[in-house]
């Protein structure tokens, strides 16, 4: 079973839910697909046993064969190629690896090389395996790194995917093909506004989902009312408590210190399992 944890707004507690759920589940695989800010392992402290580069293909022009006709740069929708007299400039960070330049080149002058855009790390501790994608700083394209993370899915475990914030392509890549999506929000106007966006994306992708309200008690009731009106199940409310905030700030998963919450997370998991299998 694959459960993705998402939210429109950042900082609502996706990683908190992902980590505490993984610990409560026991035999779990946690995929950190928030590759711009992979933070899950700050809480799990798993020692990574393996690390590999994530690469994308970018063009390499064979200057001996190139006649500087300019067809490649004219075709490229991403402005990743520019032809100046006797030189082809490749802006590798703009390339989407569509291979169009190779197809339009009449001289067969376009070859390919691998370019590193991020790292993939793997490790296991106490039955929880962690896969972390880490976008290289200064790189703009998160998608290839998210794809690499998702290739590691091991369905023998409860797979928990920590998605990035937002509502655009990286989120969709992270949650695609999940059996269930948990949308984490907070009971504030910003939380509600961005929850609605996240609901929109999840519905559009036809994925079953439910809501976890974090910092319950801090704001108002509008998130709950919205969920009622839209018939969205509220799966769990994590109370707004100083102890939780303080444990979080030190990188401590609260289920290790608060058994009642651990039980809540286990019940949450059972409920999702039932929903998925029904």
């Amino acid at each position: 079973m694959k459960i993705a944890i998402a939210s429109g707004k950042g900082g609502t507690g996706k990683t908190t839910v992902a980590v505490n759920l993984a610990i409560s589940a026991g035999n779990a695989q946690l995929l950190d697909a928030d590759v711009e800010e992979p933070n899950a392992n700050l809480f799990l402290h798993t020692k990574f046993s393996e690390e590999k580069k994530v690469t994308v293909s970018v063009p390499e022009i064979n200057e001996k064969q190139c006649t500087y006709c300019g067809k490649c740069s004219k075709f490229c929708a991403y402005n990743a190629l520019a032809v100046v007299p006797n030189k082809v400039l490749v802006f590798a960070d703009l390339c989407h690896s569509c291979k169009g330049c190779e197809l339009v080149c009449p001289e067969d002058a376009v070859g390919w090389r691998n370019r590193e855009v991020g790292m993939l790390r793997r490790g296991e501790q106490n039955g929880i395996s962690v896969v972390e994608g880490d976008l290289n700083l200064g790189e703009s394209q998160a998608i290839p790194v998210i794809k690499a993370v998702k290739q590691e899915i091991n369905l023998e475990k409860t797979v928990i995917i920590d998605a990035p914030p937002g509502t655009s392509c990286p989120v969709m890549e992270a949650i695609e093909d999940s059996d269930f999506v948990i949308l984490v929000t907070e009971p504030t106007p910003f939380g509600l506004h961005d929850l609605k966006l996240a609901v929109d994306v999840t519905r559009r992708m036809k994925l079953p989902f439910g809501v976890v309200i974090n910092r319950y008690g801090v704001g108002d009731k509008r998130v709950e009312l919205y969920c009622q009106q839209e018939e969205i199940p509220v799966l769990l409310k994590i109370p707004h408590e100083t102890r939780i905030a303080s444990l979080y700030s030190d990188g401590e998963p609260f289920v290790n210190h608060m058994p009642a919450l651990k039980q809540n997370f286990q019940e949450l998991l059972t409920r999702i399992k039932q929903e998925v299998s029904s």
Partner: protein
Amino acid sequence: MKQVTIISGKGGTGKTTITAAFAALSSNAVLADCDVDAADLHLILKPVVKKTVGFHGLEVATIDEEKCIKCMDCVNHCQFNAITEDIKIKYEACEGCGVCELVCSVDAATMIQRDSGLLFESETRFGPMVHARLNTAEESSGKLVTEVRHHAEDVARKREKDVVLIDGPPGVGCPVISAITGVDLVVIVTEPTLSGIHDLKRVIDVANHFEIPQAVIINKKDINPKKCSEIKSFCEIYNIPLLGSIPYDTSVTKAMIEEKAIPEYDKGNVTSSINEAWAALRNVLNLSMVKP
């Protein structure tokens, strides 16, 4: 005219709350919401839209089913798996490269304009604002961020504003890079938590990569005093100006619920610390402190 982007790396540290507060304190600013994925600034500033412009990201492919002979050339050449086995375009997966159009021997595949969102030029009680709405499940948020910034710069020039305050997105990828490229300063809003500090360091590396000067604001400073001093000494070591530290207070959420900027709601510690941070920011930017 100066441009300042408020970023954080980690989401939920208070970027938008602080941008709205600065907007309330500014007298000569243009506000730009560049968190186009999950834009929230308008919830506080309540802009009145004066002008709406359509935004088109990269093109998207379409297939003319009458012409299509199902030869599968497009399917086989698409690097994004954006065309299904029965030759349907997966709108969300298409990255607009045009390879299908190129390889189609019967002209069945064509690239068309994609309506990706809307861009607004508006007025708020604190001055002009430029913001946008990216349609859900769209790409090209980086491109939309750039468009919002161009419009905001235009407005600032036309109306002789001295600063563009940009509310940035979380993370360190494409939209963040678009939001910070070429600005005069990034203000990084962090919080004294392990994740907050981790992401602060990442976003500083990105700003350094693009050679953009930085300043830091610590929000919710009392969550963890030890981590708070850790951030302070980190800033000292790397010579990054600390503009201020803002206490954690329930008035911040209450102001949000009332749809008010902090200085409009709170007359206590939070507002005074934001006042100090704003004065420090103006000082770093060499802007005059004259208020009409």
